[in-house]
């Protein structure tokens, strides 16, 4: 008992000490940058991260998730340095909280929606084919906030399909959750980004033409108060020629980056 108490006291003291000491020594704190990025950027960023680290000499940590969740994290004080959102609305959330480093917000990439179906053949080649009764479950990002879901809703509304198909939607916390549900066959169809459709074993039914769907823009910004030289280096790398080429390889459309 007393021995246990002593051990417990020792652990408590050690924890208290650890809590007081800064997690990273100040001298190297700037050498690591946390990039909070939309889950649709997963494969792209994993691909370019090593080159980014070589070029900039900065260690990159990726925090991937639904842009809405990432925005909430930042607003609640999460230590993110760069925010890459899949829609303007979530960047607006961060900006309204006064957490975008002034002058750093840029429109980084454009994307398109795609409709995917699970392996076995339900013929889907246009939005109205989703009305087919065999399409019982349509996986989407949560239309309440997850960017891919918000875009999917806008797309369905534009084709007057939202009221009918709303009941068949299965919302996910990230676009990748929706993608996985179609890949596993648990959902019959899904609405994801065209870039997501390339990286999974799903059947691409069709890519929504740019003029038939919502305008899809990925804004980028440095988080206020965290615009260290290291963070700026990574931020600039993301807009470099090398990064743009990689974005194009993954199906994204690099924007000129100067406008908002």
């Amino acid at each position, binding site marked *: 008992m007393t021995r246990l108490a002593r051990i417990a006291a020792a652990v408590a003291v050690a924890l208290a000490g650890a809590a007081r000491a800064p997690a990273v020594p100040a001298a190297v704190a700037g050498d690591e940058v946390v990039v909070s990025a939309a889950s649709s950027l997963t494969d792209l960023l994993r691909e370019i991260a090593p080159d980014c680290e070589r070029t900039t000499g900065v260690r990159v940590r990726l925090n991937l998730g639904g842009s809405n969740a990432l925005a909430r994290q930042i607003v609640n004080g999460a230590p993110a340095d760069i925010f890459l959102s899949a829609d303007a609305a979530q960047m607006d959330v961060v900006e309204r909280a006064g957490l975008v480093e002034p002058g750093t917000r840029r429109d980084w990439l454009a994307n398109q929606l795609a409709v995917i179906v699970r392996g076995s053949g339900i013929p889907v080649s246009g939005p109205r084919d989703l009305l087919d009764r065999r399409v019982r479950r349509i996986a989407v990002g949560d239309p309440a*906030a997850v960017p891919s879901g918000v875009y999917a809703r806008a797309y369905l509304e534009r084709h007057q399909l939202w009221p009918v198909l709303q009941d068949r*939607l299965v919302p996910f916390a990230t676009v990748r959750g929706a993608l996985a549900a179609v890949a596993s066959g648990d959902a019959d169809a899904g609405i994801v980004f065209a870039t997501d459709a390339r990286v999974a074993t799903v059947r691409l039914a069709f890519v929504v033409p740019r003029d038939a769907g919502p305008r899809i823009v990925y804004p980028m910004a440095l988080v206020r108060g965290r615009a260290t030289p290291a963070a700026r280096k990574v931020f600039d790398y993301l807009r470099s020629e090398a990064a743009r080429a990689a974005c194009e390889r993954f199906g994204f459309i690099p924007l000129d980056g100067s406008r908002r």
Partner: protein
Amino acid sequence: MPVQIWEVTAFTIAVALAATLATSVPAVLLAWVLARRTFPGKALVETLASLPLVMPPVATGLLLLWAVGRRSAFGRALESAGIDVIFTWKAVVLAMAVMGFPLLVRTARAGFEQVNRRYEAMAATLGASPSRIFLTVSLPLASRSVVAGALLAFSRALGEFGATVMVAGSIPGRTLTLPVAIYSLAETGHDRAAGQLMLVSVAIAFAAVAAANRLQSSGR
């Protein structure tokens, strides 16, 4: 208002009740068997029956997803029989039932073990069949433990999150339960609605604890 508070609350209570009822008969029978019988492999059965209690709920959820999803032969058989489980309320009940099962088994078993075997033996000498002994002697004498176990399983079901999101998702009006709604409301920036649902859960928890206490004191 992004979700209907009362709709979510009523749905959660209804599915939690359904899960508790669905699990009660097999759980109580298993508890009785574990308390009264010895058989080869008993230790294995005991361990399996406790697994959902100690496994991470999402891991249990993944197992269930694989079991009833379209990737499994069983899931496809269900589907061709016209029974949709995954992403429906049935999946919610399934997740809740599996998670509550060990709590009911363990509590009921402890109750059966406290029943004096002499009463059961006396009933047997008077010619009662084993099932009659169970229904008229063992079960009534262990009833407080069984009800307490059911209450525990029900409370566990009300709070189920990990397994539920895996097999049932979070479809408003279809599979959205209180804990999942709180999570997705907070994630989507609806802090006010999330807070309201949090208050509702506090109220339900309060009522459940009060009921359990009352149950215990009235028995003494």
